C-alpha cells in the first residue's frame, strides 16, 4: 500500500514541497530594497589606525595581491598606499602587523564605478616634524 502511494506520488513528488514553500516566508530578500547584513566576522575593506603605524613594511611584504605599497621618504617619514581594486580582503596584513595598526572592518560595501575610489592613502607621514 505504502509502495503504491509512493509510486503515485512519484508523478508529482515536489507538489507538497511547493505548496509548503508557497505558504511560508520566502528565503530570499528583495535585495536593493532590503539591505544585506554581513556577519560580524565578515572581512571587509582595509582600515588603519594611523597613529600606531610605524612604516615597518611587514604588511606590504606579505600582501599576496600587492595591494599595499610603502613609500619611504626618509627615516620616520613614509606613506602607505592601498589599491582597493587589487585587495582581496584576505586579512594577511592584519596578521602581519605587529603594532595593531592595520585591520579589516566588517562592513559590506558595493564596488564603485569611480576609479578614484580604488586608491586610498592609508597613512601619510611624509611631512611629519
Amino acid at each position, binding site marked *: 500500500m505504502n509502495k503504491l502511494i509512493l509510486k503515485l506520488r512519484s508523478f508529482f513528488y*515536489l507538489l507538497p*514541497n511547493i505548496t509548503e514553500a508557497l505558504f511560508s516566508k520566502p528565503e530570499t530578500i528583495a535585495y536593493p530594497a532590503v539591505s544585506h547584513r554581513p556577519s560580524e*566576522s565578515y572581512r571587509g575593506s582595509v582600515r588603519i589606525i594611523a597613529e600606531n603605524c610605524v612604516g615597518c613594511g611587514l604588511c606590504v611584504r606579505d600582501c599576496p595581491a600587492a595591494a599595499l605599497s610603502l613609500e619611504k621618504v626618509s627615516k620616520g617619514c613614509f606613506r602607505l598606499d592601498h589599491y582597493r581594486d587589487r585587495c*582581496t*580582503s584576505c586579512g594577511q596584513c592584519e596578521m602581519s602587523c605587529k603594532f595593531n595598526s592595520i585591520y*579589516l572592518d566588517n562592513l559590506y560595501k558595493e564596488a564603485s564605478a569611480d576609479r578614484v575610489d580604488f586608491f586610498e592613502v592609508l597613512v601619510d607621514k611624509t611631512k611629519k616634524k
Partner: protein
Amino acid sequence: MSKITVPIGPQHPLLKEPLSFLVSLEGEKVIDSTLRLGYVHRGIEKLAEQRTYIQNAYLIERICGICSHIHSTTYCQSVEALLKLEVPKRGLYIRMLLCELERIHSHLLWLGVLAKNIGLNTLFMYAWRDREIVLNIMEEISGGRVSHAVNIIGGVRVDLNEKHLSLLQKSLQELNMRVDEILQSIENDRSFRARTRNIGCLSLEDIKRYCVVGPVARASGLDIDIRRDAPYAAYDELSFEVPLMTEGDVWARSILRILETIQAIRLCTQIIHNLPKGPVSVSAPRRVPAGEVVSRAEAPRGEVFYYVRSDGSQNPARLKVRTPTLTTLITLPGQLKNMQLADVSAVIAGVDLCIACGDR
C-alpha cells in the same frame, strides 16, 4: 542527414565557467565532440614560484571558488611537511570542519546546477537555498563565504567560540533534515529519474583506465577515498562511511553525492563534539628547508594532488597542482558519444566540472 556542429561554450548557459565544447550532431544525436580548455588559465603554478610561501596560501585559494579551502589545506599540509611542523590538533579539526562544510556546499551547488540543466528549476532553488545555510556558517566562522582565508602555514587563523558551536549545532540539524528531503525527492521524483537514468554511464574499467577519482569513480563502484585510504589532517580519528554505487550513471552520481553530503554533516557533528582544546596554530618560519613533498587530499570532486619542491628560499621552486576535474574531463567525449543533445547538459553537469580548477 547533414552534420551540424554546435558550439557549447566558451560562453553558454549550460556552463558556469568557460570551456569550449564542439559537439557534432546528426539530427539530435551526438556523433563526436572535441574539448578545449584554457579559457581561465591564470598560470598559478608559475605565479606561485614568484611569491613567498605565506602569500601562496592565499593565491592557491583562488584556484577555484568552490573548493578553495581544500586547495589551501593541501598546500599548507605539504609546506608543513617540509617544515616538519606539528600542527595543533584543534587547528586540524577546524581545518577538517571547513573541508566538510565545503563538501556540503559544493555538492549542493552541484545538485542545483544539474537540476537547472535538466530544467527542474525548483530543485535547483531548493538545493541552493539549503546551501545558503552552509555559506552562512562559513561566513560566521571565517568572514568569507567562498574564500575563507582560514589556512595559514602552521594551522588555522580562526578559532571557534561558543557562539559558533551553538550556531553550527543548530544549523547542521536543520541542514540534515533538508538534505534528507532532497535525497528523498531525487530518489523518487519521476521526472528527475527520467532525465538522469542510464545516461553518461562509465564502466569500472573506464574509470580505472582514465584514473578517474572522486564521486564519479565511486558512483561506478571504485572504492577510493583519500580521507580513508591515506588519512590526512585528523581523519583517522573520525568515523565515517564512504558511500558506493555501481550504476555509474548521472542518477547514481547524484544519489552518491547527496549520501556523501549526509556523511559530511555527520563528520561536522563529530568534529564539533570532539573538538580538542589548545592553540589553533604554531608559528612557522618564513624560509622552508630544501626538499620535495607530495600531498594528497580528498576534495569534493576527488583527489587533489600537490607537489612542492623547495630550494631553501622563501619561494617554492616548483608547485604542481593536479585537480580532480582534469581526470573527469578526459572521459567526457567518450561519455557524450551517441547521446542526444538534450542529455549533453545532464552529462556535463553530472561529472561536476570545475573548469577553474582544471585550468589553474
